[in-house]
Every structure is written in C-alpha cells, then in structure tokens.
C-alpha cells in the first residue's frame, strides 16, 4: 500500500507517521508537499499533526484551503483513503471533507495525555481489524480538539454510523470524566459517509511500538492493510 504523508509549513507529526509506516509496518511511503495536487501514485494520504501555518487564525483553517487538500475529493473519488490525525482532523473539518468543527478545549488548556477510545464502527477501512466495543489506548496532544456539530449533523452522523471513536474509560464507558476536551458526545474520531476519510484527534503513530507505551494505534494501519489484502474494494485504481 502506497502512503503519502502531507507536509504543511508547521506540520510536525509528519516524520513520526513516516517512521511508523516505513519502519514498523514497512510499507512504501513518501512525503507530499502541501502545494502538490497530483496524488495519483498513492493509496492512502495521511494528514498529520502539528500547527499548520501556526494555526494562528483557527486550527487547520489555512491548510484546509491548500492545493493538496483541494485535490483530496478527487483522490477519494478515485478510490483513495485519507487519514487525518490531530491537526489533520482539524484540516479535514475546515475543508468541509468531514462535518462539524473543532474548537478550543473546554478546559482552555493544551492537553497531552493518554486516552481510551471506544470503537463504535468497525466496518470502515480504518477499523476492520477491530471489534465494536473494543477499547484502544492512544495519546492526544492538542489545544483545539473539542468536536462540535449541530444536532442535525449529529443525527446524520449517527444514522450513517460515522462516529468511529469516542473517548471512554478503560472499561469502555463513555463518561464525562473520560472526555479530555469537552467534545460533544465524547466524539474522538469520525468518517465521511463513505467511510473513506477518517479524522481523529488522538495520535495512532504515537501508539505503534511497545517502547512508546503501546501498539493500539497499529490496529488502524493493520485495518488499512487488511482491507487492501482482503478486497481491493476501496482501491478502485
């Protein structure tokens, strides 16, 4: 599976994703500069964490209007998948590729900590190696991760099973105390209607080696690779 890791000015999880993809899951991977529009030779585009353009106006706002992001709808229409983590999630929302928006954390502080995620939808290319109800452990690191969507959008999300991860306790209970940033309904990650674009605030690349404290993040990559191996369905090209 050919991965491309997008680099915006101010991106910083790019090297981490690159390392995990090339050294841990051992797949072909390259960096994609933010001005690039040609994604034809890729199967999966990763929008990594960081502070693209400093996030000075709103997190992800400027990057959400960049050439590479403008090229994503066509890439997805052609069978590609997109994984946006942290700043990547913010960018996908700002670009309108995912519904809703990410606001300043309710505690008004940056939060870097371990979180537990309840898997809600295990039928996306990103979660096929998982079971619904399973609990994953992954760190977060953000100041603007409070997911917001209006009631109608939330209904649609539910109707199409677009909520993939919710913040939960280690036992899988979705509680207020387990919500690190005040996200509506503890939402930590969602997909688009087709399930081909995933945005999540946690960092799977930081949970991909036991030396780093856990490997739950690898499940997302394994799901992607498994999806490819079992049926090339989402890879139309």
């Amino acid at each position, binding site marked *: 599976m050919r991965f491309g890791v997008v680099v915006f000015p101010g991106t910083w999880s790019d090297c981490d994703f690159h390392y995990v993809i090339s050294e841990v899951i051992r797949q072909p991977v390259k960096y994609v500069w933010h001005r690039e529009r040609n994604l034809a030779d890729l199967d999966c585009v990763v929008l990594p964490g960081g502070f693209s*353009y400093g996030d000075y106006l709103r997190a992800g706002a400027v990057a959400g209007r960049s050439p590479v992001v403008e090229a994503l709808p066509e890439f997805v229409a052609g069978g590609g998948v997109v994984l946006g983590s942290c700043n990547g999630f913010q960018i996908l929302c700002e670009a309108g590729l995912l519904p809703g928006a990410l606001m300043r954390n309710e505690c008004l502080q940056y939060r870097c900590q371990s979180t537990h995620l309840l898997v809600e939808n295990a039928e996306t290319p990103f979660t096929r190696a998982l079971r619904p109800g399973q609990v994953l452990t992954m760190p977060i690191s953000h100041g603007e991760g409070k997911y917001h969507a209006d009631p109608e959008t939330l209904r649609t999300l539910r109707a199409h099973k677009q909520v993939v991860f919710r913040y939960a306790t280690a036992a899988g209970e979705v509680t207020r105390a387990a919500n690190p940033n005040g996200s509506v309904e503890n939402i930590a990650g969602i997909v688009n209607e087709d399930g081909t674009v995933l945005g999540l605030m946690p960092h799977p690349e930081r949970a991909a080696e036991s030396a780093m404290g856990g490997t739950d993040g690898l499940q997302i990559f394994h799901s992607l690779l498994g999806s490819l191996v079992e049926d090339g369905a989402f890879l139309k090209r």
Partner: protein
Amino acid sequence: MGAEPKVTLDLARGLGLTADEYDRIIHRLGREPSYTELGLFSALWSEHCAYKHSKVFLARLPQRGPHVLQGPGENAGALDIGDGWAVVFKIESHNHPSFIEPFQGAATGVGGILRDIFTMGARPIAILDSLRFGDPADAKTRRLIQGVVSGISWYGNCFGCPTVGGEIAFAPEYAGNPLVNVMCVGLVRADRIFRARAEGVGNPVFYVGNKTGRDGIHGATMASATFDEHAEERRPTVQVGDPFTEKLLLEACLEAMATGAVVGIQDMGAAGLACCTSEMPGRSGTGMAVELSAVPQREEGMTPYELLLSESQERMLLVGARGREEELRRVFAKWELDAVRIGEVTAGPDLVVRHRGEEVARVPVEALAEAPRYEKPYAPPAGLAALQAFDPMTLPEPPDCAEALVALLGSPAIASKEWAYRQYDQQVGINTLVLPGSDASVLRVKGTRRAIAVAVDGNGRHVFLDPRRGAAMAVCEAARNVSCAGGRPLGVTDCLNFGSPERPEILWQLAEAVEGIAEACRALEVPVVGGNVSLYNETVPAVGATPQAILPTPIVGVVGLLEDAGLLATQWFKAAGERIALLGPEAVSLGGSEYLWARHGRVAGRLAPLDLEIERRVQGAVRAAIDAGLATAAHDCAEGGVAVTLAEACVTGRTPIGCEATLSAGGRRDQTLFGEGPSRVVVSVGSARQREFEALMAESAIPWRWIGTTGGDRLRLRMGTETVVDVGLDRLEHAWRNGFERHMA
C-alpha cells in the same frame, strides 16, 4: 529620524557603562565612539554578553573530556554519544522578561534556546524547564505560573519539540523574581556540527527570518528617546514569540546546511545583530561589513542603533559559501522565508556598519570582545554562620509522622507537577521512552540501540545555606537522576541564577557555587560544555528598602547515555513481593530540608555531608544493577527524605503498589524519615535475583542494605521495632496528586 544624541560620559552611563569602561573604549579606539559604536560596546560589554563578573569563576569549571566535541564558547555544547551521533545541549534563563510578561517571556525563552540548538545543525528533540516562583497560594504568583507554563506550552508545542522534564519549586525569595530556565537537547551527526564562525573573506552574509522591529532594545533606547518628540513610539517593546516562523527556520536551516553551502550560522539572541556581526568574525579572526538598510524591517524609521540592538525573535545570521547564494535562497524560499544578503566577510580587523551607504560604525572586532573582567571582593553574608548553627532538633517532633508525611507529599514543591506537564507535548518525534514523572526522562536515538537520559536539578535553599556543597549536590542530584534511569552521565550544562554581583555576599555565593559545581563535575567526570549566567535577580520590595535577592540558584542539567535503550529504569515499584534496598550513606540532615521549610517555615541548619567518591560509586552501582536487569525500579532520595522517596515509588506508577520498610533506629523519627542527604537511592529487586544483587553491591563497595519489601495497599515504615508510619496509599496518592494542582484549579 531624530538627530542622534551626542556621545558623552553621561550617555554612556545611561547605557550601563561605567566611567572606567567608557575611558577604555576611547583609549581602544583612539577617539570618541559614535553613538552607534557606543551602542555596540554597551551591548557587548554588558554583563549578559560579556560575563564581566562571572568569567573569572567560570574558568574553573572542567570543560574537557573524552566525549566533548564542543565545549563552552559556541551556541551550545556537544558530546559524542557513539554510532556517529552527537547530542547538542544548553540551558538558558529568561527570568526578567518572564516577570514582565510571563507568557511571552517564557515563550521567547524557549524560542531562544531552540535556536541555540539548531544553529549547531542539530534537530531539537527535548526541552526541559526549571522554574521557581513565590508561594502558589498567592493569586499573583498563580497568574505568573499560569502565564509561564502556557507560554512554554505554546511555543514548544507549536514548534514541535517535546517538553520531557523539568522542575518547579517555590520560595518567597522568588516572588518578585521568578526563574525561568529552559534547557534544550538536540541530535546531530557528529561530523555535521555547525559553528558560529565567519570564515572565508568575501563570503556573503545573509539575514534570515522574521523582520526586525524595536523589540527588547535594551533600556538604551529609552535614554535616547528623550532626545526627540517620538519618545513614546520608540519605547522598547516586549519581545513576542512566533513559534511557527521558528519551525520554518529550523527546517530551512537544516535543509540549507545539508547543501554544504552554509559556512557558519548564529542566532540573533541577546543584543541581536550587534552580537552576531561581532562574535562570528571574532571566532574566526576575520572582519565583517554590513549594510543595515538591507535588513528587513517591520517598523518605519529605525536607526542604525536600533537595527543593531533589536532583539526581535526568530532571526539568524548566516555566512554562505560564495557563489552558492542562489542555492541558499531557494531553500529559504521553499520555506517561505526571506534570505537577504546584508554584507560580507572581510579580512578584518574591523566590523564595519553602513546605513544607506554611510559608515556609522567601524570597530575592531576584537575590541568588542575585550570587555573588562572584574575581580571584585567577596565575603560570606553576615548572618550565615548563625543560620547554619541552628539545630533542627530543638524543634518539636511531629505528634503523628503519617500525617506529617501526607502533608509533605502534598506540599507544592513535592506534589505532582502533572498540571504543568500535561500542557506540554511530551512525545512528538516519537522518541520519549520515559515521560515526565520519573527521575529522568529517556529518549531513544532512532536507528541505534542507544538512548539518552536527561534531568535538571537545583535547590536554592541548599545553596543558600552552603553554596559550595549545595551546588555540588545539585550536580550530584541531576547526575544521580540520570543514573537512576540507567544513563551514564556524560556532560553538564548549568545556569547560574544569582542576585547582584556588586554585593560581596552574592559574589561569594557565586564563587563558592561555581567551585562546588567544579568539584562535583571533576569527581563524576562530567565536563561542563555550556551554560548561562543570570545575575541581578533581585527586587526592591518597597521604595528605599534593601534589595531582596533570590536564593542563589544554580540549575544543573545533565545528559547521560544508555548504550541499550531496552535497559532503562523508572522510579515506581512494578510488582508486589520484591525486595527494597537503600543504597548510600545513612547520614541525613533536616538542615535546609523541605520538611523544615514546609512544616516549620525555616531555612536553617547544616547540610548532610557529601562524599563525592561515595556518590560516584553509588551511581555506578545503580547503573550496574539496571544494566544487569536486576533493578526493577530506582528512585533517588531527594526533597522529603527516604519516606517521601518510598511513598513516591508506591504511588507515582500507573498502579499503586505498597511497601513495608524498616529504617535505622536511633535518630529522631522526623530526621530519619524526612532528613535529606546526598548519594542515596532506593532500588527494588525481584526476589529471585536477590543474591546476584548482593554480589553486585559487594563488588561496588558502597554502603547499602535491604530495608523492606513491596506489596499491599499501605506504606508501613518502622524504626527498629516501632511502627512510625502506617498509611493507606489512597491518602498518599491523593495528597501527591492534588498538592500543587489544587492551587492552580
């Protein structure tokens, strides 16, 4: 632009120079300096840049060692860690700016030290912050803490370097003068270290990064502004950080360096362009000619003086290889940065500064580096002997030692600092093997089996009571923390925070402290490869009152090496049924202890003795035990004594694990439990490996003994047969988790 003020002795004084220094300048130049030239001297001969009062002492620090690739004198020091890699690291203070504007002051402190690291060609991989404040129960102090921590968080997080460690301590002496010291560690190929040199006559000099404004121009401009009606507009402004531009600078500089077209590079920190244009040629025996009108400017009508002294952030001066200008410009353009040619390297000996073609300064580069060195008289403070003579045993014993322990664990200095570090990204770069919360943090070196361990330490109360021993103990403690993680200490960086060196008792503290650091570094064979001095940390509490100096606070940062990243240790107990050993001497003292301060509000008494040879051996023994896979946890005994150390080993891990231990009988209970002394480490050992451990300790020739076992959900401490503490872990954990945070919530 108003007319330049006339150069007089009074003006020179206004810019911080003494009459004697002013005479020297005239003598050296053979004429009166111009206004701009006077500005150059005032900046480069300032205490901050020239170390006028501290240089004589700093020379005493050991600076050489087998691993040293770069000692003091460059932007940062560098050590060889094997497999072709080097670590580059340094600590710096940003105390005064952080008091004026906590958020931006701390943020720009982070920005400055990051630049020091990546100008050496290294990618920053870790930040550590060492902070000192007044009482967190005070609302004003809380706002300072909030501002400083969020400033560090903002800059480090946005830039993308993890903050993996540090410390926060409190004492009333810091209320009017908080300390913000930031250390940064970077990684570079050992043969790819860049230096701040201006070599090669005719090579182009580039200015890169943010535009120049009137930020932080040292009080100097204030004085000059009275000469025209634009005083208000010219007022020096607070420096503001731009971590995004800094991140672009990092990537662009590393990429530019990789082309081979960079000859030398230095960041524009204190005294900005003045400092770079004189220090860079100064190091390589060349000269430099620059044209100031080429400098990218953010404000209208900036004078040569202002352009030279501005401390606008996120700027670099770079000497390129002649003929490869286009290559450099392309790299910077890719990162949306301007690289502007502002001059060239000359044969010397002068720094020649022009503005719109007109020469505004011509000064021998060497003259700017020839600031006077002062050897002023010093003497111990008058009341110190009386303070040292105080016997803590004259104070009442606590009626209930368990209560005393819970209170001590909940004192802000000892309690968990998670409130601060959860605001810091701790993992970006995916190198952090041990996160903040253990004795030292550990970062792997990707592509090798190696890892580095880092820690910063300092204890102002100890140094106040006994500057020499206290400072030596700071080196030992930082190194011991690194050893407790399994790292072999390789090198030191230090930040010397003191009051005014013009007072004999402060200068004495400084002299003694440096001597203590030097002794400890020699004994532990860790050279000092860089550091920083911050003097004049005092406030005048009320008009006419005597200035109140901070506690003398040398902060020591140590970097150590683990040959095998798999063999690391953390401070918390891992399982029940393991044996607990206490390594090191029994001797402890309540003099200068956290207990004496937290419970009795006193800073007095004598410190426990320090035997550097024992210290060295204890650290070696701990590392050997970790290397052999015998130690499942290792935790250094520091503030709060052995009782707090054991309590922390019980409750700071993910799953609390209790223990029972028997301490030596005989002494008074509070002294045995909470007394502090150097060279002590608590280690847990799997019961199956007990014999092996005993053999190893015998070989290490250190004092040590088994003191107990892990398990259960209580901490039980005995002295002889008497149980002196028996308390549930939940109470201990609650006190520890909330002791600091409850103030900040």
